[in-house]
């Protein structure tokens, strides 16, 4: 592999990693704070994508540039409505009970949303590429790239990472979330409304899942089953990073994106295996993930 192909592979890897990070970070955030493995995360991604496409297709005739705010609006709508509903009515009654119940209830939500998706948007693939077409292609060594994928998506991913870091470490709301993450009982004792923190955090996490779907929607066909595929990949990324590790998720997404891109150039037959192979290798050596640490368990 020569240096030209290596640069192409790096660009492809970064583009892929950006999308994977955006989807996985919500899962990681929810687990970090609520200790809930949200299986419905894939459905939130799919709903975000479908609603973004619906908004885009509706608003593009007015002005194609309005499709960008439409992507954001779709993410927020899904995060607030679907995320809020799941947390308030499905998860809240189960806090403090067996973790398996949370897993089962989010799995049930996933199944229901998967069917709801078919009812609402049908089974034919939907494509809404307007936001992608608005931005020009760029040429690297004679190979065309869409600037949406190699510039915009990585820029949004980086902004999300630093924005989330700033929010959690430099704002009062972030400090409150971290306090509840650290110790729910103590934070409740000092007057923090933990229920509200869980609710807001779940909505933020759900909105990130929907944002991942919304930003992916201009580049890909929206089809039944797309949520299931994404949840598996998100889990692999989040588990490799260490559940609840925001920066770790970014590093892992980049590692998976780059490895996958190089593998496609060198040994494409292993492409499908890359995320899972990396996950197994990492978890064998570090059972809590690359960035996770051992934790004290209360008995």
């Amino acid at each position, binding site marked *: 592999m020569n240096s030209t192909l290596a640069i192409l592979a790096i660009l492809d890897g970064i583009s892929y990693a950006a999308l994977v990070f955006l989807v996985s970070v919500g899962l990681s955030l929810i687990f970090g704070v609520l200790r809930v493995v949200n299986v419905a995360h894939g459905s939130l991604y799919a709903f975000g994508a479908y609603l973004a496409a619906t908004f885009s297709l509706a608003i593009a005739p007015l002005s194609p540039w309005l499709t960008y705010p439409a992507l954001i609006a779709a993410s927020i709508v899904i995060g607030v409505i679907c995320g809020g509903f799941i947390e308030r009515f499905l998860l809240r009654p189960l806090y403090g009970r067996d973790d398996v119940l949370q897993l089962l209830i989010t799995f049930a939500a996933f199944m229901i949303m998967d069917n709801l998706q078919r009812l609402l948007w049908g089974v034919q693939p939907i494509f809404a590429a307007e936001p992608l077409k608005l931005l020009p292609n760029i040429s690297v060594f004679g190979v065309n790239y869409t600037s949406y*994928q190699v510039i915009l998506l990585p820029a949004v991913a980086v902004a999300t990472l630093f924005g989330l870091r700033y929010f959690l470490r430099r704002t009062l709301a972030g400090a409150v979330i971290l306090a509840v993450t650290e110790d729910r009982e103590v934070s409740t004792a000092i007057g923090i409304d933990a229920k509200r923190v869980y609710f807001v955090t779940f909505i933020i996490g759900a909105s990130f899942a929907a944002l991942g779907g919304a930003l992916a929607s201009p580049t890909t066909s929206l089809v039944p089953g797309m949520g299931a595929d994404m949840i598996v990949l998100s889990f692999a990324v989040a588990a490799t990073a260490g559940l609840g590790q925001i920066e770790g998720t970014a590093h892992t997404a980049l590692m998976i994106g780059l490895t996958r891109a190089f593998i496609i150039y060198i040994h494409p037959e292993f492409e499908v295996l890359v995320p899972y192979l990396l996950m197994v290798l990492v978890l064998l050596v570090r059972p809590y993930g690359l960035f996770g640490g051992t934790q004290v368990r209360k008995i």
Partner: protein
Amino acid sequence: MRFLKTAVAAGAAAIMWAGSAFAQGKPAEIKVGITTFLSGPASVFGVPAKAAAEMIAEDLNKKGGIGGVPVKVSFVDEGAGGEALVSNYRRMVQDEKVDATFASISSGSCNQLVPVAEDLNVMNFMWDCGAASILETKKYRYNFRTQANGTPEMLAVLVYLLKVKPDFKTIAVVNQDYAWGRESWEIFSTALKAMKPDVQVVAELFPKFGAPDYSTEISRLLALRPDVVLTTSWGGDLDTLVRQAGQRGLLQQSMFVLGIGESSIQRLGKDLPEGLIVGARGDHWFLHPEKKNDAAFKAFNEAFKAKTGAWPIYPVYHMAQAFSALQTAYDKAIKANGGNWPTREQVVDAAAGIEFATGFGRPVTLRPEDNQGLEAQLVGVTKSVPGYDFKVLDNMMIFDPKVITNPAGVRSVDWLKTLKPEFVKMDVPAFKP
């Protein structure tokens, strides 16, 4: 006179008895159980096919059914897969007591259900699955394939490519990483090696089934610059690949061959450029050059569009073929039974070797040696024409199934290896849109 009266009365009674016996022999309905994808990515085929089945059954019943008996259809979702599919299939046959089944779309489903149908002694039409090996490894009594298999489907596309672009030197493949993606490439590449051994395969890419992004594959192909890129992907995967490749100029750089792209043409709309080779898994095209002026064909297409919002795609026509085969088998069995209602076994006997016509394409023959359907193959190249907001097919060739299907008893891959470069010189007339 008294004798005459007695004779007339006895005769009348005999006729009434016979009539009554005949009427009792006829069932109230012919139950047909259909497996089709109602969930998952393959529902892009399964849902239109279900709509077609309902339309065809309704139309058939309006015309008096089959042999005067109405047809009743029921459906099982192939998307459930695995054991759930087998259990539902058994329930359909054993509890609902269907008279025949149409199973399935996926070759994996067919591989699972064919032995079950054989065990349960129920006539099964493999109405859409394409794996050639199913009928090559064993002779079945109850299982028939009412359409072609992957071998003629891929061979027709390859011969078309060799006819319209005989001088290409390099090829790459981007197929979905599952049974069809792998098997279709094996068929295509084996035949290519036999007929044009100097072609170099520069990349074999098998991205994950359902992959949302092909950026890296496209970058690699842009760097490799192959003369031809083959893909036998379908559904959302094909749409994504074509759109992403188009946005980055790959469709303009290499000649793209969409092995089963007919089903994506309408969805891709203006994003599909001119000049791409498209196969149709049979001679299926809503503007079929030999049928486009046929009143029944037009009426069916328009009714389907009115019902679903889209013109029919190949699984719709495959479903129509299964119904046509069912009707032909029953009609033949009734005739062979002297006009009396046949037993199930008599219908199965009658199905072997039948030729049937849907009116939506050329007739199909069920080859008696292995129950494999011999179905013509239509291949064309995309072109813009006024009146449609998507590309239609130009320079269409319809391939004779007897020429491009492996002989009964010879495995596909073994037969493909025997092909010579002269095979391409077969005479195939071309049609304009």
